[in-house]
């Protein structure tokens, strides 16, 4: 493929860090979290399921809101070199943290709802629960179909000797907009979850 690479401005190029796609040293932490989740589900421990759901959900929602509504607009207004500098350090970490938090929250949440009898169709607030599935479904489509591909493509572009800054700019726009949308969707999650928790 003929790529029309625009050189990185000289002042930035020497300080450009080596981009790691996945921070391997964090993988054991992910492993421990996933093993903990399996144990929580297997033992049906109410406290452990509650912990994984509340802690995971709180962190996931907080990160999505912060990245989508605070960091995203700031990133959009930064110069391209500054954006690259920040993204090359932040995106690999998000690549591990967010899917782990999503797995934690959804896995424990579904099991918790099952344990509490909230999944039953005669549960008075079943429609709110279905609404939460829809919100998560929309977020999953946006995150897996648009945000994650753009995120990975940017990281691989940054590994090139002469990254195409115009291409990175376009892909970053996708990242910023989709992060904003998932941030807004998280407000709907907060409304639904606090409604369910207070009935």
């Amino acid at each position, binding site marked *: 493929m003929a790529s029309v690479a625009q050189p990185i401005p000289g002042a930035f190029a020497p300080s450009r860090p080596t981009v790691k796609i996945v921070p391997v040293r964090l993988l054991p932490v992910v492993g421990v979290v996933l093993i903990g989740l399996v144990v929580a589900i297997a033992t049906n421990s109410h406290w452990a399921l509650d912990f994984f759901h509340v802690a995971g959900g709180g962190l996931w929602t907080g990160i999505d809101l912060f990245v989508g509504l605070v960091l995203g607009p700031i990133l959009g207004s930064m110069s391209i070199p500054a954006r690259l500098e920040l993204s090359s350090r932040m995106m690999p970490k998000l690549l591990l943290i967010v899917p782990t938090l999503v797995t934690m929250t959804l896995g424990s949440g579904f099991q918790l709802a099952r344990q509490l009898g909230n999944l039953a169709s005669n549960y008075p607030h079943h429609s709110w629960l279905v609404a939460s599935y829809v919100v998560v479904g929309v977020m999953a*489509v946006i995150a897996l179909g648009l945000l994650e591909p753009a995120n990975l493509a940017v990281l691989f572009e940054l590994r090139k000797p002469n990254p195409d800054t115009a291409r990175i700019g376009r892909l970053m726009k996708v990242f910023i907009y989709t992060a904003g949308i998932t941030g807004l969707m998280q407000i709907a999650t907060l409304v639904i979850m606090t409604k369910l928790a207070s009935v």
Partner: protein
Amino acid sequence: MVAAAPSDERRLPPIQPIAVATIVLIVIGGIYTAAHLPRHVPQGPTIALLAAALALLATNVVLLARIKPFAWRIFRMVTAWVFAAYVVIAGMLEYVFVYDHTRGTQLLILTGMLVVFAVNIPLLLGFSVARYQDPDG
């Protein structure tokens, strides 16, 4: 929200939109199933959604295989690593289904959805990266 490619970038088959449509079908199937559980889930709609998702995935595999030249080495590397991660995720979901006594045709349909999910996402991510890399050879 797919990044609009400028005219100097190579035109490729619509693999990303088809993969996103596949995710949409699987997610709808998942929501439909979760909304009925633990009662019996009507199987007609879920089978139709799974069949449509499978057809889209097969279309994407064919479209992808016909791209020449392409950065197959990078594609294979990204796809393999993402597939390894999604096998873990899909495996955990399968474990929860079995643990929660999902059996028979319902388990088969859910397993089928997980297989499509675990193949589709790596294909999408592999393509999203490889499309911007220099082709092999």
